[in-house]
């Protein structure tokens, strides 16, 4: 009886994790493509962060990053190399969120605005957003990505791990022994 309940709870958690993976993947595909289709707009926004000044680097970031985001989104949607992809999302999201925060603080300081009233196009692919909403959204995305790194979202994944590891404690099935 208890075992049945536990199984049902695990199934719900699996479904929630798979949904979170799809939402994260879908969001990255959408955000990536919306920038990839208008790379010059994204180029202007990247330039505003003043991270790089060399044209080749600036163009490479603005030209390739949106496609890379869409690629990662597709992998998550399909459930391919989920943990590795999620690591890449964390690697992108954390510094980007810090950059957005830094820029928002600069705008708030320069314009004398309360922090949460700062609104600007951060280059996320969704146009102008209030900074507090953006930071909250990114924190949630980072949380979901970390959960995927921890192994969530296996259900309905085409190939969860690209580099398969044997499952500990599992008796190999006849097919596995071949």
């Amino acid at each position, binding site marked *: 009886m208890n075992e049945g309940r536990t199984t049902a709870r695990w199934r719900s958690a699996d479904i929630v994790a798979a949904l979170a993976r799809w939402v994260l993947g879908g969001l990255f595909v959408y955000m990536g493509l919306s920038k990839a289709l*208008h*790379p*010059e707009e994204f180029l202007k926004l990247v330039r505003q962060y003043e991270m790089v000044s060399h044209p080749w680097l600036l163009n490479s970031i603005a*030209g390739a990053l949106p496609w*890379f985001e869409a690629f990662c989104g597709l992998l998550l949607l399909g459930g391919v190399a989920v943990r*590795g992809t999620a690591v890449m999302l964390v690697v992108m999201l954390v510094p980007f969120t810090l950059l957005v925060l830094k820029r928002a603080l*600069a705008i708030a300081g320069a314009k004398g605005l309360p922090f949460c009233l700062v*609104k600007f196009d951060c280059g996320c692919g969704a146009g102008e957003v209030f900074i507090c909403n953006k930071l909250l959204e990114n924190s949630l995305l980072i949380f979901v990505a970390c959960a995927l790194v921890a192994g969530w979202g296996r259900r309905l994944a085409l190939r969860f791990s*690209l*580099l398969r590891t044997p499952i500990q404690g599992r008796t190999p099935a006849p097919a596995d022994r071949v």
Partner: protein
Amino acid sequence: MKRVLLEAVLVAMIGTALAFVANGLSPRGLKLTRDYFPGSNRTGAAVQPATTEAQGGTGRDLAKPSAAELAVARLKEKGLQVVDCKQALELFHDPRLAQGTIVFIDARNDEHYQKGHIPGAWQFDRYHPENYLSAVLPVCQVAQQVVVYCAGGDCEDSEFAALFLRDSAQVPGEKLFVFTGGWNEWTERGLPVETGGRNSGQRGVSK
């Protein structure tokens, strides 16, 4: 965890390679070696662009120059002439516009141009000059005054389009004028607009 990191490296490598290929194949892709912002110096303007103030927060120190004043100073520093909306309107109503000796150049992308532009303006998307130069260059060579505009406000596309025309296409600098208020100011004042292609006949007044 080691495998996860290895997987992440694989994703990064394959994804980066595919991303560069996609950018190269995309008709809207960026040319990696092109300097889209030649001679740009953004000191002091880093915080200003692409921001809007939410309700209740004007916060501007009157002693400090506005973004528009900074833009005008920057343009003049680069040797570009500037026209305001009143002067642009005078040029628009000048009979020489019909003769082609006054020309308006819209430096925005195709999507924005099709939605609406100053009637008779030629499109010159500076990010894809190869697509427009063959049409725009002869027009600029014949014209006595070339007025370049983009969205206005913090938009710099008109500035870089004018610099491209002057420095790369050899259009004499004394002909070139940047309309700093741009499309936003033009439409805010309810001035004539044209939608679709150039001389499409779909004219109206902006709301």
